[in-house]
């Protein structure tokens, strides 16, 4: 289960190259080659993965380690609002919260990014100018991904044009599940190109992919196509981010770096609501891929209600007594 892939067996005859794709040019040459490669990835031991994730979830993180973990988690949060009822005003208030999560305590770090729909990226960009907080926009007919490629690419260009420097795209799960891997691959490549300088996060929507094997394959497919991040879910489907699926994806990015030298980030999103959940994820990162990934550039937590819980726990550590929801801002 924790087996590290040997690059030699991945792409027979090719040596790991310095940049993305170079070691794997062969496998993306045709649908058949890509299928053969993805199905040739070692299967995930479901029981083993679940047990490993559950075991790591029992680690006890206390006092100074907990304080560090809470601040690290806050700095990794992609503060998200993806509602039909979103307004510029709501995005602006979210941006204010992103730069200064706890107005009563300036030592609380800012979050990593604000994640909104593409049409509101401009509002977020304006509100976050000069803060270092990124603006992420979901695109490609989020959350279903059911639109033609032109529409998806236009969606991406629009979001980038509005000021998003990170694009969260969804893959076409229908095509993926039907086995049309090359189609999905080419779409990610096209979106990556449309992103220009913006970072690309590829949402696999693991809840719809059903199996861990599929999550591993989709992760590889996205990384081969040039993703900067692989992201578990849209947050609109249950189950969203679970610990085992995050473990599978972390193993994929670890193996991908071993094979190509390129480091891809991971973003679990949806269903992470408590500090305890967030800390479990940090433990999982540290134990699976190591401290290289314990930075907002390589690991993000997509969440909305999580931030308030992190702040409550932070206040508890600071003051010594339990805080309440009246002591953090309402989203």
């Amino acid at each position, binding site marked *: 289960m924790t087996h590290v892939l040997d690059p030699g067996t991945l792409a027979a005859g090719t040596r790991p190259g310095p940049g993305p794709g170079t070691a794997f040019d062969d496998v993306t040459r045709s649908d058949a080659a890509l299928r053969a490669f993805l199905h040739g990835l070692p299967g995930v031991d479901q029981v083993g993965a679940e047990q490993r994730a559950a075991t790591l979830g029992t680690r006890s993180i206390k006092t100074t380690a907990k304080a560090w973990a809470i601040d690290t988690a806050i700095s990794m949060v992609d503060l998200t609002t993806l509602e039909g009822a979103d307004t510029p005003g709501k995005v602006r208030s979210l941006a204010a919260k992103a730069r200064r999560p706890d107005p009563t305590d300036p030592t609380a770090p800012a979050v990593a990014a604000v994640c909104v729909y593409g049409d509101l990226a401009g509002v977020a960009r304006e509100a976050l100018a000069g803060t270092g907080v990124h603006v992420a926009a979901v695109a490609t007919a989020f959350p279903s991904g059911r639109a033609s490629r032109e529409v998806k690419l236009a969606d991406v260009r629009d979001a980038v044009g509005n000021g998003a420097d990170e694009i969260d795209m969804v893959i076409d799960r229908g095509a993926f599940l039907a086995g049309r891997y090359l189609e999905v691959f080419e779409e990610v490549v096209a979106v990556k190109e449309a992103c220009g300088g913006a970072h690309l996060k590829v949402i696999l929507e693991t809840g719809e992919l059903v199996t861990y094997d599929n999550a591993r394959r989709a992760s590889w497919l996205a990384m081969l196509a040039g993703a900067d991040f692989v992201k578990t879910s849209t947050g609109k489907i249950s189950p969203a981010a679970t610990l085992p699926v995050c473990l599978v994806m972390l193993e994929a990015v670890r193996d991908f770096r071993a094979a190509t030298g390129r480091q891809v980030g991971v973003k679990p999103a949806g269903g992470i609501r408590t500090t305890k959940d967030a800390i479990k994820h940090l433990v999982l990162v540290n134990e699976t891929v190591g401290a290289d990934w314990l930075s907002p550039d390589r690991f993000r937590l997509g969440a909305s209600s999580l931030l308030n819980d992190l702040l409550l726990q932070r206040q508890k550590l600071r003051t010594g*007594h*339990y*805080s*309440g*929801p*009246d*002591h953090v801002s309402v989203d």
Partner: protein
Amino acid sequence: MSDRLAVRKTFKLYLGGAFPRSESGRTYAVTDARGAFLANAAWASRKDARDAVVAARGAFAKWSGATAYNRGQVLYRVAEVMEGRHAQFCEEVAAGEGLSAGRARAVVDAAVDRWVWYAGWTDKLASVLGSANPVAGPFFGFSTPEPTGVVAVLAPQRSSLLGLVSVLAPVLAGGNTAVVVTSRERPLPAVTLGEVLATSDVPGGVVNLLTGDAGEIGPWLAEHDDVDAVDLTGAPPAQAMELERLAAGSIKRVLRPPAEEPDWSADPGLSRMTPFLETKTVWHPKGV
């Protein structure tokens, strides 16, 4: 003599409508009045108290938003279900408090009657405590009692059932939700009361019963920013002043402990309901 294996009961907490063990995994031995072993009860920790406050806060909107008439029906239902467990309560009260069978029966009867008494009060509080105020202007001014919020109750240490009901029911009647730390030495009737509450239409989270040490959990509840009031009845006397000081940090309502545990069979009056009610006054312009 039958060789059937005994089915022993695990005494757990009542928290958010469920019966979990203590998060800490701790238990402690409970003895009867003569010191003989009765059972192992869950020994609640500060994290159980924290979880209980979250549950109580979550349940507050529904319970305080229910009509007073409906709350009365639910509290009456508690009395009904308790009546069905009369024998079990008698046994536990007799063992824990060292009472005769007849005396224990009288105590349980009184506890059931107390629920009925408070059930009747829910829809009368507004009439008795509220008022239409005479104001010097073209306004109609009126005042109504509103629940305070989440109330932490340190239940009496000696009277394990009648005392418990006498401090819990008034908190609920006003529309508050409660986190109760039971008597440390005599927690068993409280666990059974939890089972009664779970089966009598009281929404989960409205009452949370923690068996354990009020001296240990009390400070965490008194200091908790999301607790709106504390009833210190069962607090260790030496600690009461410190608890009140901690409660002041978040401006809680505090009901001070009596000098001596009172005779719970006496007529309770309104004295235990009013401390956990806030008066809301509305000025309404009068049209011509």
